[in-house]
């Protein structure tokens, strides 16, 4: 039976890339539709995600699902090969806990630390580093958060594995370093070199240029405040 799988995303968004990564892990073919999230959101996007009006939106045989981690769990339950979550309910709960921690604590703290004005930077960096330290403890000697293979938490932490390193290059402010967080830093290298992940990352130069422009823009705004 012909399956219709579509992903509405944005080339630089870690959130839509999470969905694409999950599909690649499962070997599911899909059609990708690029949305202009800063300019003009398409009528289809607004129809499929009227509540949040955001990407990613996942469409399976015409039925839409929004929110990247909800979509990833849907993908896990629909296509059974190469599982992203453990079988054991407790281990599954731990994976969900850490994925939530990444989304609700790490990402906001890291974004703030990356682009906050000079006078707020030290405090923001401290909070971000606390998050990274806590997250590193979840690795617990493993190659990936999912164990030997990429799992839900690795997918959720894609921003930390790839985007963060480029933000650091663009801003000159290091939060995740080999000295401060050796295990997490090593994980980020492992993550981006993983073949299935490599194929689902935005182009390096394009993303770096984006962050450099963003940083320059933020600096200008902060300077005039």
């Amino acid at each position: 039976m012909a399956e219709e799988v579509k992903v509405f995303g944005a080339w630089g968004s870690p959130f839509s890339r999470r969905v694409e990564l999950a599909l690649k892990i499962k070997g599911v073919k899909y059609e990708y539709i690029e949305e202009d999230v800063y300019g003009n959101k398409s009528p289809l996007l607004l129809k499929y995600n009227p509540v949040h009006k955001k990407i990613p939106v996942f469409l399976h045989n015409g039925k839409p699902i929004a929110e990247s981690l909800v979509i990833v769990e849907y993908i896990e339950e629909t296509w059974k090969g190469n599982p992203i979550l453990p079988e054991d309910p407790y281990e599954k709960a731990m994976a969900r806990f850490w994925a939530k921690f990444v989304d609700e604590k790490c990402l906001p703290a890291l974004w703030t630390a990356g682009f906050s004005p000079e006078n707020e930077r030290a405090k923001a960096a401290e909070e971000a580093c606390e998050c990274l330290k806590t997250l590193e403890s979840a690795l617990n000697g493993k190659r990936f958060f999912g164990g030997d293979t990429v799992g839900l938490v690795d997918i959720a932490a894609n921003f930390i594995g790839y985007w963060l390193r480029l933000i650091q290059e663009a801003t000159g402010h290091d939060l995740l370093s080999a000295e401060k967080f050796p295990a997490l830093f090593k994980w980020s290298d492992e993550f981006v070199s993983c073949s299935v992940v490599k194929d689902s990352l935005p182009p390096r130069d394009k993303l770096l240029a984006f962050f450099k422009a963003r940083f320059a823009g933020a600096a200008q705004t902060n300077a005039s405040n």
Partner: protein
Amino acid sequence: MAAEEVKLLKTWSSRFGLRVVWALKLKGIQYDAIDEDLSNKSALLLQYNPVYKKVPVLVHNGKPISESLVILEYIDETWKQNPILPEDPLEKARERFWAKFNDEKLLPSIWGAFTKEGKEREEAIAAAVENLKFVEEELKGKKFFGGEKIGLADLAFGWLAYLICVFDEVTGFKIVDERYPLLLAWMQEFSQLPIAKDNCPPHDKLVIKYQALYEKLHPAK
């Protein structure tokens, strides 16, 4: 059968802890309730939830789990009777989406309307109105968010059924009003469920608590 040990760390008024109570009661699971004093957190709480240091924490045979929605899914996967989530992945995704919507959008906006002042309060109220519209829409043609029976999303929204009236009384401002007839009907249905009727914090005690908080946040000028 091996003796199961289930403990729940919560507070008497925690709306997140209450969700877990409802789920445990729904499935008929025996558990030990440990009510925490959040101004003086126990060593046990700090040991079981070092990341957030918050309630609720479910401890099953010595293994702790935090974050109420994570706990609810664990409970559903561990005890199969009276399921909270449907079998169908799409329906499951819908329940998770709405539970998340409550936690990330609706609840914070209503809480903002209660706690904030001036422009911030106006913005919170505007956001709450938008959010309530979506929730009302989702209830069309349904008795509960889960359909005929309650599910994960109902447990997430459940706080509305007993706490909104407290906020109304304390603030003198009705946020869930006649613009939302389906939601008001759902609140009635939910509060009549045995799990809710027998397991909600006492209304008067809640009014005292939130009255005191409100006065602290909005001192008379």
